[in-house]
């Protein structure tokens, strides 16, 4: 069976005269290099994926990662610069104007982040808009639109004007407008992005319920990890126009394809709010600079590590010592380790999480977190990030899956 939607090496570069930029892309230049040399933005950098019939496929990534661009290639609002996009095996980029209009008017419907509801039409005429474009008679389209509005719980609002509706209601109108088309593909570009958390959760639930009945092929864009995990049968993580990993929620959580995905999974929201101090942990053992070599070695052994942070008076961080440095001293029966204290990798306590990642990556050992007076606050290890995320979630979210 062929896939419902399939992208093959899909590249989208914004602007005219994309030849040079495409050449650079094919030679393996990065997005920023292409931008610098040609002034053109690489929107999608060689995407490959298949979406099966009846599946919810989620595109997730940071702002500017090319999610909307990729989505707009599916219904031909944007045309690929190279590569191909197939819907039911037919290449969208090869379609003529008429064919494209039929594709959009009959087989693919879209829900928009900012609703895109026409302010001069009342609700029912907004919902009937697509049918009107199709040339459906007024009575027939009102009947269908009215049914669609009932199905999203807005049956009593048919004759109201859009200005009278709340954000959540407007998005339901957007959904009804897409559903009434009875097309088998639904493209949703951050449809719940403009809604507050509670209504958002409610809408997600509704979408899932609806999906159980209507079984459409849905491509859903979001930048919210929870939303992606909750809704997606499969998830594609995008970065700088490229797809970093595609898989089910379980697959991605269990085996992130690379560091970026890992960071993305752990840090996406938390990284904006938390700082280094708040996620740091007190190490299991420390050593004071006045203590002896043998004490230090004993503690290393006890905690099964090969280094310790050293603190001085008033918990000031002095540095760190390693077992390899201590062992010769121990042989010489020296008691003080002051001569072998090394400089520790430190990080200020108010560093935001996002900036902690690169530091951590360049450091073999844990990072010592210090305050503005150089006092020791705790450590951040490679595990700390994952742990802090789990704690924050308190078992919901991921565990629910």
């Amino acid at each position: 069976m062929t896939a419902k939607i399939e992208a093959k090496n899909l590249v989208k570069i914004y602007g005219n005269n994309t030849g040079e930029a495409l050449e650079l892309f094919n030679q393996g230049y990065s997005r920023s290099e292409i931008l610098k040399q040609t002034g053109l933005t690489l929107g999608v950098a060689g995407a490959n994926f298949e979406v099966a019939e009846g599946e919810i496929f989620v595109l997730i990534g940071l702002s500017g990662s090319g999610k909307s661009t990729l989505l707009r290639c599916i219904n031909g609002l944007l045309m690929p610069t190279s590569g191909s996009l197939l819907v039911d095996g037919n290449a969208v980029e090869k379609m003529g104007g008429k064919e494209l209009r039929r594709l959009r008017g009959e087989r693919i419907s879209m829900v928009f982040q900012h609703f895109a509801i026409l302010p001069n039409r009342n609700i029912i005429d907004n919902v009937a808009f697509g049918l009107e474009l199709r040339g459906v008679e007024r009575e027939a389209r009102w009947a269908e639109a009215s049914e669609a509005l009932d199905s999203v719980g807005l049956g009593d609002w048919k004759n109201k004007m859009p200005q009278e509706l709340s954000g959540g209601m407007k998005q339901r109108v957007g959904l009804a407008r897409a559903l009434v088309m009875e097309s088998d593909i639904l493209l949703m570009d951050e449809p719940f992005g403009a809604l507050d958390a509670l209504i958002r959760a409610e809408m997600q639930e509704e979408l899932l319920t609806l999906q159980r009945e209507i079984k459409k092929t849905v491509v859903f864009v979001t930048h919210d990890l929870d939303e992606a995990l909750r809704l997606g049968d499969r998830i594609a993580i995008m970065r700088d126009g490229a797809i970093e990993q595609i898989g089910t929620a379980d697959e991605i959580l269990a085996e992130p394809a690379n560091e970026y995905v890992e960071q993305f999974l752990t840090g996406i929201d938390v990284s904006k709010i938390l700082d280094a101090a708040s996620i740091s942990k007190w190490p299991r053992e420390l050593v004071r600079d006045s203590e002896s070599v043998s004490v230090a070695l004993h503690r290393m052994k006890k905690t099964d590590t090969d280094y310790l942070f050293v603190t001085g008076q008033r918990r000031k961080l002095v540095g760190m010592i390693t077992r390899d440095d201590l062992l010769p001293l121990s042989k010489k029966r020296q008691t003080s380790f002051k001569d072998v204290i090394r400089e520790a990798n430190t990080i200020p306590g108010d560093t935001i999480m996002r900036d902690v990642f690169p530091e951590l990556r360049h450091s073999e050992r844990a990072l010592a977190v210090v305050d503005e007076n150089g006092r020791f606050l705790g450590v951040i290890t490679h595990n700390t990030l994952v742990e802090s995320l789990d704690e924050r979630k308190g078992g919901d979210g991921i565990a629910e899956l």
Partner: protein
Amino acid sequence: MLNFSLPKLEIGEAIEWLVRWIIANLSVIFDVIKNILNSITGALNDGLLAIPTIILIIIFALGVWLLTSKTTALLSFTGLVLIWNIGLWPQMISTLVLVVVSVVIALLIGIPTGILMTRSSKLETAMRPVLDFMQTMPPFVYLIPAVMLFGIGVVPGLFATIIFAVPPPVRLTYLGITQVPEDMKEMAVAFGASDRQVLRKVELPLSLPSIMTGVNQCIMLGISMVVIASMIGAGGLGAEVMRAVNRLDLAHGFESGLAIVVLAIVLDRVSRNIGSGKTTPAGRIIEYLKKHRKAKLESRVSQI
């Protein structure tokens, strides 16, 4: 000292040559246009004057009421009765016909031009200086080619008025359409709209307020030009003003001026109200009919 004279550029002569060439070679076309316009304005004039004045005044007031509100309708009624009373009714009608015909033609030219400008940036850059030119050239200048092309009478008056009144609808149609949010257009395209449908169902409705401002300005410029056009025999209230000026007849001049003011106010209020989104009696009636039909439809649907 350097002292040499540049030869004068013969711009004015070139234009004159052009107009003369047109007259010499295309006069048939202008005769046809002239005849058509003459018969249209003549018929409208005669038709309106054939209706008993008081009935026509009531019809006008009713129309104003439908399109605006009760107070404006009462005001218009009083104003029109006043014009009738001072004996300027036939002149007012001929001015009204002149304004209406020239505005309709100006809109038929202006709105499509504005739309085309949004589709072609080349046309847009080309039209910009032309529009500036048309709006800043003293309107009296238009009278000269008008007379050369059409002689003396109503039609050259129409011609000059149209040229003078056409820029606002062009500009404001262009402005209105370019200000339609991109995501609304994208939505329409995503639902399978053709270019034409995007224009008809999204761009024009959403830019209606701007376009109506253009219509309003077109009417206002039309009225002011009609007075000037009376210099070349367009007749109407403008001619009365001219006569009063020539005779230094303050009383008559004031009365004619007042009649123009009344006409201008009525046309302004009506054209300003259409498309402003304010509810009008006409709007309420349409709304009522729509609801009625929807209710009927719904009951039919629920019966099934």
